[in-house]
Each structure stands twice: as C-alpha cells, then as structure tokens.
C-alpha cells in the first residue's frame, strides 16, 4: 500500500481523537521533540531527528510512581496514578525504533519487568517513517540499523520520494492501517536509498574494548568532557533513573527521574563512597556501557547511531571518533 505525502496531513487529522494521544515530531517553543498533536501543531516530518528523543513517551524524565499518606490509624496508604491512555507516535525514525528495542530489553526481559514501562509500552503504537536522507551526524547504518527499515514498528512508512510504502508489521499495525483506508491506495514503490556521509566501522571494537579498561585513551577522552548530562539526556537509549520522594509531613510522592552517569553523585553510596569518583571513570563507564557492556549482556550495541550526542555535545566529544580510535589501535 502507498500513502501519498499530500494525504499525510489529512490522515493525521483523522487519527487524532479523544480516545488516544497522538504524538508527532514538531518544534515546541524552539525545541524539536515529539509532542501531542492538536489543532495548532505543525508536524515536521522533514527533519531527520528530533533534539529530544522519544524515550520519554515510555520512560518520562520525571515519573510519579505513586503517592502515599497516613490514615487515621497511622498506617500508610499507597495511591497509584491512573496511566491508562493509549498513545500513538507517528513519524518516529528507525534509529529511535531500535532504541525502543534496547529499552524493551532493559525493562522487560531477563526476569525483570518494569510495570510502568510495560504499561506504557503496551499502549504505544509506533508508526515509523524511514529516512530518505541523513543528517550530517547520522551514522545508524554503521550501527546495524537500516534507515528505511524498523522491524519492531507497528507500521513502517518507507520514504519513496512523493509517497510512502505503508507496511503493517504487527497485528496492532494491521488494525491501525485498516483504519487508514480512505487515505491509502494499493501499490508498492521502490524506497529511496538513504546516503549517510558519516560512517564508522564497529569491526572488532567490542572485543578490543574488553582489554582496554586501563588504556590511556580514556584519559584523553575524559579530559575534555564537562560531565554535563546533555549526552545522556538526549540519548534515546540511556535509561538510568533515580528514585526519590518529596515529603510533606506525612504524605508524599514517590517518583523516579532520569539520572546521568556523568553526574558526580551518580552511584554515590550512602556512606559517601563513590566507585566512580572522577571524570575518567564516569566517561569510561558511559562509553563502555554503550559499546561493550550492553553488547555482552543483550547482544546488541546500546548506541543506535542517531547522532544526537555528536550534534549537541558542548565540547564536541564524539563517539564516532572514539570508535575509530579504538578500531585503529593495533
């Protein structure tokens, strides 16, 4: 099936309804992110990648887990929040779809199921749009992602120039596409090939990193790092969080919020000891996690090549250069 680009907006308008929230890539007050589609929203499907990753649809920066109070008898009462709304995200990119694969692994497998994530994930329908062109910093192809394919998307829209190939990939996707009937027509078109100027070779990198724990490369890299949280907060796969609570006398709210391995109090223990006290350890941890630890545990890279950190790092600390440098070590 194909969807012409002229039909895209009419389709979107049709999709927004009371029963679910539709998110599209757009500019909100100068920041590009996935935002709720309403009358005034102007979706931007031309931009390759939003500045803010879509991960907070599944894993919000601040997530209130429950609130509690004390009843007349002095016992604690727990109140849960109602998070039952269905969500549709339209226009997510293949790299970000891959990041959801990573997050699924973390939050849903190996016997640990995060119910907040699982709930949101179950209610999320993803319509992925393939990339016809790449941004300067895109290198997903090097990280084993095809810019026109996202197997875990419910619906895949391959960019073919003036039209999209519409492919329903899951039962949820088939239901979704069935409802698009007035806007789509039969046919298949050859997708545009996406050219990426930025490419790195992961050949042997994972294995090499195994023995590089004390390599001077980490010092050279970390010395320029500011230890701000930009890369971790913009990364679609970074998923560390921290649970705390705001108390008001005897009632309070327990919430979790994104944490960043770049921050000095990350992994700080109650007694004041921090196994990663300095920049070097923190930076090493971040890159080892992206390129080695995750690979070992889940068999995939935690970097999806979206290029956000490359673009936004205030000191141009570049993961692709690290990969190249590691590859170059004899």
């Amino acid at each position: 099936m194909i969807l012409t680009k002229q039909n895209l907006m009419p389709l979107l308008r049709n999709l927004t309804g009371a029963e679910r929230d539709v998110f599209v890539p757009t500019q909100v007050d100068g920041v590009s992110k996935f935002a709720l589609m309403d009358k005034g929203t102007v979706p931007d499907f031309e931009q390759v990648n939003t500045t803010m990753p879509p991960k907070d649809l599944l894993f919000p920066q601040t997530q209130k887990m429950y609130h509690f109070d004390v009843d007349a008898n002095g016992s604690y009462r727990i109140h849960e929040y109602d998070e039952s709304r269905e969500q549709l995200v339209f226009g997510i990119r293949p790299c970000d779809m891959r990041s959801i694969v990573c997050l699924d692994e973390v939050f849903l497998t190996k016997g640990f199921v995060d119910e907040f994530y699982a709930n949101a994930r179950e209610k999320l329908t993803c319509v992925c749009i393939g990339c016809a062109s790449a941004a300067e910093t895109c290198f997903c192809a090097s990280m084993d992602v095809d810019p026109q394919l996202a197997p875990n998307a419910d619906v895949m829209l391959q960019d073919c120039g003036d039209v999209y190939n519409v492919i329903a990939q899951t039962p949820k996707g088939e239901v979704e596409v069935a409802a698009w009937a007035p806007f789509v027509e039969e046919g298949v078109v050859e997708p545009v090939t996406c050219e990426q100027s930025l490419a790195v070779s992961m050949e042997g990198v994972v294995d090499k990193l195994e023995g590089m724990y004390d390599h001077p490369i980490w010092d050279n890299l970390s010395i320029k790092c500011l230890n701000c949280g930009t890369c971790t907060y913009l990364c679609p796969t970074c998923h560390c969080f921290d649970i705390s609570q705001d108390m008001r006398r005897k009632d309070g709210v327990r919430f979790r919020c994104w944490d960043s391995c770049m921050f000095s109090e990350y992994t700080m223990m109650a007694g004041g000891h921090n196994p990663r006290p300095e920049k070097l350890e923190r930076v090493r941890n971040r890159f080892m996690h992206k390129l080695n630890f995750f690979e070992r545990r889940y068999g995939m890279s935690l970097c999806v090549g979206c290029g956000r950190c490359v673009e936004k790092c205030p000191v141009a600390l570049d993961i692709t250069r690290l990969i190249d440098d590691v590859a170059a070590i004899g």
Partner: protein
Amino acid sequence: MSVVEANKTAQVGVPDSWEPKVIAFCCHWCTYTGADLAGLNRMNYPANVRVLRIPCSGRMNPQYVIEALNKGCDGVLVCGCHPGDCHYVTGNYYARRRMMIFKRLLEYEGLEPERFQVRWISGAEAGKFRDTVMSVVEQVRALGPLNLTREIPQFELPAVPDGQEAFNAVPEEVMPEEVSA
C-alpha cells in the same frame, strides 16, 4: 518535564475559601521585636502572615524565597533593621543589595512586585509592622493565588523594533497618561 505533562494544561479556578498565604522573614533584633510590640499593644492584623525568625536580614538567603513561592506561598515579606541600626553592624546593608537585585530578578521573570517585598521595620515600629502586613496581605489577595507550577501555553518573544522606533514601542499600559492623551 514529560511530554505528557507538558501538553496537558489544567486550569484551576480560585475557590471561594481561598486565603492568601504570606510568609514574613523577620530579623530577631528589630522586626521580630516590632512584631512582639504589636502584640503587646494588642494591634490587629490579618492572620494570613506567619513570621519566621532569622537572626539578621543578612542571613536571608534568596533560596528561601524561591522555596516559599514554589511550595505554595502567595507572597513573601522580608524585614530587617533600618540601615545603620543592624545589630550586627552591616548585615542589612548586604541584604539591601542582595534583595534589591533579587527582587528585580523575580519581577523580570514575571513575578508581580507585590508578592515579594522587603521592608525595614524597627523594634519600635509596631504600627509599621501591622500596616505592612495588612498592605501586603491585601495586595496579594487582590492578585489571587500564585501557582508557579501551572503549565503554560507556548509563547513567542514579541519582536522589538530597533533604533528610533524602539522608543515608541513602550507597551500601552505603561505609557504615562499625559503622553497618550
């Protein structure tokens, strides 16, 4: 803030039972004494104010103000000895500078000037304490509740013409009457 939160706008009406909450940071040596004197003289003032005793207005950390406004106070009053009368000689001189800057900063960020006020009230000025509390409470009441955490619609900075025209681009409501007349 999550995408979800940012996009849900909730407007809460002001309930009839609403009463303004004002916190007054008072220095121990002058204003707290003045407030006690107001009590001794059985003066009456609104109960919407709660006094928090600090040793000196120089102890006043701007963070306390932000905290109070963030956590639900509708107005903050900071009081100390008159300049020159500080029990610790110079504390209120530093406070004066810091509070002048901080007040301007809060107003710049859109806080109504009435919500954050600073006054010098001596230990003898029980009447001034009462009057100040009354006027602050009334001003804050007129402004309504301060809900700093409410969600906000998108907003663009209006273009300001440069050069000659900039002078005339003063918003209407701040034009002096004789000029607009």
